[in-house]
């Protein structure tokens, strides 16, 4: 069976937190019309909210910057790619640290500056894959994969 996406949607919105509720609701409704469960859609909304909040807060430095989300809808999962114009080097470094950090007790208790506030812990909890790319112009891109519960190999409830 081909593993290509069934559908692809794209949203580009101004770098302003006030737009995020409408964007996350849109993604949720798109999932509902594609027969994902309300629970899956709601939890995906949380992911969209967190990664868009990060993109706007840390990645939209100038007043006219924008955030772009691409969603690939598969039979068994959804993949997001969120791009922003790139923020300050220290914010990108914190973001990278948060994305690459392992959720382990040692790390949490090691007293390292945590990624608190980035909300990526909850994204990690609700998704199967999360990674980031930063190009030479600081354009930051976060990719998140979330699978349907019944398609998860581990069978863990998400």
């Amino acid at each position: 069976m081909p593993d290509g996406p069934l559908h692809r949607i794209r949203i580009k919105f101004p770098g302003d937190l006030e737009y995020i509720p409408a964007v996350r609701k849109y993604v949720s409704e798109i999932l509902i019309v594609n027969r994902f469960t309300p629970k899956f859609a709601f939890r995906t909304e949380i992911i969209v909210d967190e990664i868009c909040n990060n993109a706007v807060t840390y990645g939209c430095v100038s007043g006219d910057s924008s955030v772009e989300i691409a969603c690939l809808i598969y039979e068994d999962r959804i993949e997001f790619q969120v791009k922003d114009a790139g923020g300050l080097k220290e914010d990108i470094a914190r973001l990278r640290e948060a994305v690459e950090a392992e959720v382990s007790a040692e790390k949490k208790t090691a007293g390292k500056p945590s990624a608190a506030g980035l909300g990526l812990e909850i994204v990690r909890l609700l998704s199967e894959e999360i990674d980031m790319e930063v190009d030479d112009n600081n354009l930051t891109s976060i990719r998140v994969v979330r699978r349907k519960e019944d398609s998860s190999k581990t069978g863990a409830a998400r």
Partner: protein
Amino acid sequence: MAKVEIEFTPSKESPEVAILTFSGELDSGSIAQIGRSFDLMLEGNYLFAVADMARVTLISSAALGELMGCRTRLLERGGDLVFAGLGIGIREKLTAMDANKVFKFFSDVRSAMNAYNWEYHDRSEGLELSFPSLLKFVPPVRQFASRIARQKGYGNRDSFRIETIVDEICNNAVEHGVEADGGDIDLNMKIDRKKIEIKVSNTSDPDKIDSLKEISKSLFVPQMLTEESKRGRGLALVKMLSNDFEIEYSDIGTCVHVTKLREE
């Protein structure tokens, strides 16, 4: 008594706006300090202020009263004071006190500045959506457009009309365009304080383009519309609800431009 700090900085983006960053507890002991900050602001001829409350842990009713007084002083001169970055707990308490009917609340300073530029510099903001050419995607798209209109302060009636316009032109784009795999539908929205411009473009299905041309021709030549005519009612509705309406055909696709002025 917890120490209160108030830092004053002109906005980099709009130097006529002052950002007042408060930290600590705003209680009755901080009233004089708040008043002095606004005195300094007015001496510097700043009429608009964004109070950044992200680092505030308490706002007492006395301090809130002082801030209302400061806002009145700005309003009398044609300015305003808004709050940004309120914590959830404080925001809830202020809302319970109906302070949200006096002050505008924004998520952060940037949102407040964007709202200022929108309101006083007529800045427009743009959004783009791209979605598969399938009818099931249209309801989320039209609801998104309506929510954005509401979010930007458009009234219920305007928002509903915008939703209707988006619904009709997106439905048409699906009906007369090539199906999902052949091409996506692009929706661009440009919104400002006075109007919203909507542009929907798609890849036309060569077999359906002639029927669409017929329908759209009848819109601009009313005598071609008959009472029995069942086609083109959607576009007629869009034309009726909008202030400017135009359809462009090209070899690759169809593009519908609609402008809807804000009425409320």
